[in-house]
């Protein structure tokens, strides 16, 4: 008689599984590291912001300079994000769908804002549009103010956040190929119908993800904006710049209260990002099914 139960009970652990002790140490180290370097500073922001009570916290947001900084940051993001949305979609479309001379150069160019220090980016704008810059005399003659004014801040924000949307879309657009668009064409759809009914729905989650990252960076950018802003209080200070100003004035509660606002933005971004990743995991399963 064959007895399958006679064999001693063994746990069939996968070959790659580590012993519980090793796992505990690895997980513990990660948690410790995250706590010290990420969670503690984040908590400290809120602790300091509320250090003198809730009233003092909200007092911050009655300061006209601070309010102006919030408005300016929202304005810069409100212009930069839609611009980069359009640029990013166009660039990803052109690179992903067509073959042309200089394509790899264009891809490197899109990555440039990631590789260049934001301060350098800011400086190049000063060199281009500043009073002593390349276009300086012409701009002065026509009474156009870019550097040390709002247009400069918007321009460098667009520059610094340019890659986010394009980078998120590119691999997806390239992987999906042209077939669905060709199918739409043969079915009588026009160019815009094809774009809005076929192309866009296929990339919407990646697009949203790119927009959220782009927005977070647009609101949080410090270096490049700092160079072109000129730090005119109430006029050209964005939120990150205003935080520095307040901090240097030893106004810790207002500084951290404003910082908490940026931190909240970051947290909200994380939540939305996770939600999108969770949601877009479904279509990727579908893709695997299709490949099978």
């Amino acid at each position: 008689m064959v007895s399958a139960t006679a064999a001693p009970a063994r746990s069939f652990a996968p070959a790659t599984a580590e012993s519980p002790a090793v796992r505990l140490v690895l997980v513990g180290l990660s948690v410790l590291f995250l706590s010290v370097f990420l969670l503690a500073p984040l908590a400290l922001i809120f602790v300091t912001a509320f250090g003198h009570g809730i009233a003092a916290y909200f007092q911050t947001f009655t300061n006209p300079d601070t309010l102006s900084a919030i408005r300016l940051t929202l304005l810069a993001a409100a212009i930069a994000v839609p611009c980069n949305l359009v640029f990013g979609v166009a660039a990803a479309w052109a690179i992903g769908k067509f073959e042309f001379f200089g394509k790899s150069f264009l891809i490197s160019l899109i990555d440039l804002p990631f590789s260049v220090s934001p301060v350098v980016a800011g400086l190049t704008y000063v060199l281009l549009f500043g009073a002593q810059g390349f276009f300086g005399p012409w701009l002065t003659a026509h009474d156009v103010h870019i550097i040390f004014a709002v247009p400069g801040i918007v321009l460098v924000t667009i520059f610094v956040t340019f890659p986010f949307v394009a980078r998120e879309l590119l691999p997806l657009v390239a992987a999906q190929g042209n077939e669905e668009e060709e199918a739409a064409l043969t079915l009588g759809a026009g160019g815009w119908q094809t774009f809005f009914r076929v192309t866009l729905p296929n990339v919407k989650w990646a697009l949203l993800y790119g927009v959220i990252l782009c927005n977070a960076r647009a609101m949080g950018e410090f270096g490049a904006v700092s160079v072109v802003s000129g730090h005119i209080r109430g006029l050209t200070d964005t939120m990150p710049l205003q935080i520095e100003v307040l901090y240097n004035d030893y106004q810790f509660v207002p500084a951290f209260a404003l910082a908490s606002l940026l931190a909240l933005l970051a947290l909200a971004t994380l939540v939305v990002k996770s939600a999108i990743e969770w949601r877009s995991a479904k279509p990727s399963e579908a893709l695997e099914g299709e490949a099978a």
Partner: protein
Amino acid sequence: MSITVRGISKRFARFAALDSVDLDVPHGRLVALLGPSGSGKTTLLRIIAGLETPDAGSVHFDGRDISDQTTRERRVGFVFQHYALFRHMTVFENVAFGLRVRPRGTRPSAQRIRERVGELLELIQLGSQAGRYPSQLSGGQRQRVALARALAVEPSVLLLDEPFGALDAKVRLELRRWLRALHDEVGVTSVFVTHDQDEALEVADQVAVMNAGRIEQVGTPDEVYHHPATPFVYNFLGNVNLFHGRVDDGVTRLVREATGHLVFIRPHALDLARQPNGANTIRAVTKHIHAAGPVVKVEAVTEWGAPVHVEIGQERLRELSLQKGDEIFITPRDVAVFADD
């Protein structure tokens, strides 16, 4: 609607995909473009659809030159090898797409669209799957949806690019019979691209055999199989044995040396015997006998060392009681002779 292709040429970089191709597809016919990969068959199909622009030549529908029309204006139904279904739409929405994107004036009512899509889903036997997404369907089901989607716009012609290429063997066989039946029912002029000669011969009314950017022969499946016009067609449609030969008084003799004539013989057009039978017999030795299946495949080697493939029936094998290593005599029944160039 008939399709006429005249003098179509197309180059990709240094590679000539099509070299002055002419083709006539009569109204209501199902024509196969058959050829190995790289022969230009898919490029020709895409040019007919307007998805590629030819370097030279013209395409006509019902005698009308439509070379300058866009894909959209040509109203062709196109079925892609990898289905190209809209992955974010349900089966219903996929089939309805072509009707929904019509300009407002010619767009059917929502009610009419529902009816039309319902009819088509019944036609492809997927009425119960209307609410599913393409990723939830099998390959064969997806290709049927792609076909229904193409038919929804009542295309003037139906073009299919390797429609069964991505399917496994059994589904392929089912689906190609189903396509033939569907074509008999719908009757729309159709062109389909395939590299599978069985598929082309079984499904099509006419087969255009393509090689290296040219059409080698156009004819009914019977014509191209039994009367190949060129060595390539002979070679491509089924297995073939290649010999040197000499033609004396209408009799083709198989010889060892090159003679300037090539003789093509199908494996089933060779007779096997234990004894020499007539003058035109070559001596050989069996190397392998594959008896599994409806026909027996015998691999042999001629006295001058050339391999020969012979197909005989199971009964004949028993009559001969053939073993590996036996001496046999091969007599050709049906040969085709081409000049060797």
